[in-house]
């Protein structure tokens, strides 16, 4: 994650290109690597800007519209800037039964953001998710790359009650 920033905004970095080319090598057609390429760029930059999208499309010999169709189809390819960490809070049945609504409210209050918004300090973006595949440990949420199981209000406080956090 600590890649040096690419020199040109439009261009893809060497590291990104290398990773994308590695994926292309596995595919019968260049465009087959579309999803992987989007993921790679998102990993490096946090999100996929219009300029990045055009650069990827060009590299995969696709039209930007075609690639954007793929990018926007997936909820977790971000086409707008997100915070340093994305909170994916599960709101499907098991988690809801075990109180995800309360957690949602708590996070909203703590970070002063609603679903789809990024905290003022650019640290967190809150998104709902339908299932994280850990229903036996409900309620669950993903913060950045860390899965938090059986989340309680105390755990939320612990996670987000850091110095500088709102209402801290």
């Amino acid at each position, binding site marked *: 994650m600590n890649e040096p920033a690419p020199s040109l905004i439009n261009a893809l970095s060497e590291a990104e290109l290398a990773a994308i080319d590695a994926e292309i090598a596995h595919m019968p057609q260049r465009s087959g690597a579309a999803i992987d390429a989007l993921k790679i760029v998102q990993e490096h930059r946090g999100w996929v800007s*219009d300029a990045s999208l055009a650069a990827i499309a060009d590299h995969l010999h696709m039209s930007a*519209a*075609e690639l*954007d*169709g793929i990018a*926007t*189809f997936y*909820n977790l390819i971000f086409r707008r800037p997100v915070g340093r960490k994305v909170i994916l809070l599960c709101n499907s049945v098991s988690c809801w039964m075990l109180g995800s609504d309360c957690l949602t409210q708590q996070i909203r209050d703590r970070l002063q953001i609603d679903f789809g918004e990024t905290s003022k300090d650019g640290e967190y973006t809150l998104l709902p998710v339908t299932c994280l595949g850990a229903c036996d440990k409900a309620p669950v949420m993903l913060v950045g790359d860390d899965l938090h199981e059986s989340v309680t209000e105390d755990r939320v406080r612990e996670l987000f009650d850091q110095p500088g956090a709102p209402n801290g």
Partner: protein
Amino acid sequence: MATIRIDQQEYTVRDGDNLLQTCLSLGLDLPYFCWHPAMGSIGACRQCAVLQYQNEEDQRGRLVMGCMTPVSDGAIFSLQGDKAQRFRKTIVESLMLNHPHDCPVCAEGGECHLQDMTVMTGHRDRSYRGRKNTHRNQYLGPLIHHEMNRCITCYRCTRYYRDYAGGTDLAAMAAHDHIYFGRHEDGVLESEFAGNLVEVCPTGVFTDRQLVHQYTRKWDLQSAPSVCTACAVGCNIVVGERYGKVKRVHNRFNAEVNGYFLCDRGRFGAGFVNLESRLEFPALRRPDGRYDALDHHRALEHALRAMEAEKVAAVGSPRASVEANHLLRLLVGNARFYPGWSRGEQGAAIRAMELLRDTEATVPDLAQIETADAVLILGEDVTNTSPRVALSLRQAVRNRARDMAGELRLLPWQDAAIRNLAQDTRNPLHIAAVSNTRLDDVAASHTCLAPPDIARLGAAVLEELLPGEGQHFGDPTVDALAQQIARDLRQAKRPLIIAGAGYGNTTIMEMAAELAAALCHGGCEAMLSLCQGEANSMGLALLTGTGGARVHRLEDMIVQGDIDTLLVLENDVERRCSRRGFKLLRKHVKTLITLDSLDTATTSLSDLVLPTASFAESEGTLVNHAGRAQRYFPAFPPANERRPAWFWLLALAHERGIEATSRLHQFDEITRHCAASIPALAGITEAAPRSQFRAHGLRVPRQTHRYSGRTAMRAALSVHEPKQPQDEETPLAFSMEGSQRDTPGALLPYFWSPGWNSNQSLHRYQKAVGEPLRGGTAGSRLLYRQGHATLERAAMPGAFEPRENQWYLVPRHAIFGSDELSALSPPLRELTHPAWLEITPAAAQALQVIDGDGLIIENERLRGYRLEVRINPSLVAGCAAYSAGHAGTFGLLPGEWVTLQKDPDWQRREPAVIASDRGGVA
């Protein structure tokens, strides 16, 4: 055939069709959205649900989608079944959850398929009480208006745009309840066929931008069957008028020509009819250079006086009707009639006509082009010269996909399955051109060669087909390609060779004809198509004939001078001459009389201008590139003193006492006279029924029976409604009375059927869905296979040899801009560019210029040509390509050698400011 039962009624229907198209062909109402007769089924919208029963005992039935269910013998269906009806009603309701119900302000209202289907299913009260999604609309260019909120996500737009027309910049974005059909960013839609979205979209997401701004409902349009004048393909169109203005152009189905689709040049190119600069009165030039308006009596007097002079000559036009050209020739006599082509065009047009007339091969209509299984395009940029042909070629290359599907016993309408199966498998399409073309993405090979070398490639392919004198190209790569092309053509059952007048090179066309003849000789059903310049190029060539010495060249005639009175018919001489020639026009001609519907450089020089009616205000016959004579009819009467060109000419001929015209009074009689006196044009009378034709005892009405506001339209001037104009010349009436059911295809002014207000009503006029019109297909073919089958082997043309510091001129056509008439249409004008010259990057470096700089073009004949540089990396070395048909390149001839040098005084334009660059901010 299969016998099926629908709602206790037995029908004998065609096996293998899907149930939806079967029901529509039977005249049963079954609602649908995503299915399209030209694009097949994908079962996306779930709207055409019906009940299918296992057998006689089955009382419950199960829901199946009509468009995905093949009919087979003994099948039992129900459209009326309770469950099916309820299902369809619910589907419409769910598709419309987010629909804004903005019909009163929607340009689709009154001809909206969604409205029709909603009424058909009986859905009335919405139960959804939530918030509707709201989308941001995109700026898609000056032609198409985007209103995404109206979308019902049937996917027809992307299926048409991407799958059918090969566009890449429109896609379905996102998923679930926030699907969005648009570009990745604002901007002009790139496809040359984007305008069809207006008709493909079942609701008002994509609408005609010009119509949106000056809106008239379909039922208030006065329409007439017409023929597009924007190129030589002759697509059938419906011209809709209100308040004396052409409001819009829609597709008019012709099973043999344009089918369901038009190109954007044709759809949006009729705007020139509405130009304020068009004359409404005859104009007489005063000594001070200003013009006086005259009435037509005095105008005719002046014209007659001028024609009493000794040396009278006339210039015809490839954009004027056969009838007008014929009358003009009668008026001045054969020896003094100049067809009106430029020096470069004349030879190409006449040669193309001869080749097509004499070929043993089939001269295909567009529908036949779509059946080709191997295609070779020799030196023609079809997308830019005959755009609609390119769309047909995109279908032709998919024939292999259909064959593959046939082997697996898939049915031709199972679109998704066939595309999945075939992926990128295509029939071979080989293209040889001077630079990249817009069909390269579906081509098996694309070679950039100079025109003489394209002819040599043709000769090398011929050598492979009919080994002879060992005429090889000489370059191993090109010879290998020639072998590949020959193999593909030989293996094909219906190979197609396309060439044309685009590069002004007759050798290429001759080579194409020889290839087609050789393939015919080989026993297959070969086709030969030659693209031509203008709407009536072929008609004029047939009219002129091969006359040899009698056919003078316009420019030579002007330069030699010695003309007292020159009549110019619907032709801008400036476009056909060098600058010098045009300057001499005024000097060498004592009295210049012009008949034109436009205000051109020639009319501005004329002593007398007789304003003619445009194609939308008059009748005439045009012959398309395949030799099909087609008639256009006026949608509205010409304003004030505008008259059809034939009317002016007939009046002059009568006054002049021209014997041949003494018995001609009506338009039909001119057509008949022309057919009788020119054997090659004998078939033009069959192009459409004569003016005496009546349907159910009445003329065919141009107005719908809901036409409204006839009094209100003029209420600002007078509350007295004038008598409707009478039309004595055609079988159509400026009226709501009468019926247009069962009328011949050539006379259908619009498509409408009870319950089907949109253009989807078309199937009610077809023999069966997708099949020819019940009233017969419009037009008559003039070229029948006369097959000389002489396999004369032309000598191998000389190779192209680039010269030091000289460039070989090649015309470069632009879909928007190269055609005189459509380029004047306001929306298309936004998409045209000032004249330019394309050169290779190497040439640019040698000349020390970059994009946007100016170049001076000279040779012993040409002086004072300055054009903007465009660097084209795909252009053949040694060639320079000029924008054909653009002001600034008139008089440049294909195949001329010129020197180029940087223009030191060139003022670079600001970076082109077209609306798209402003991001849609008006």
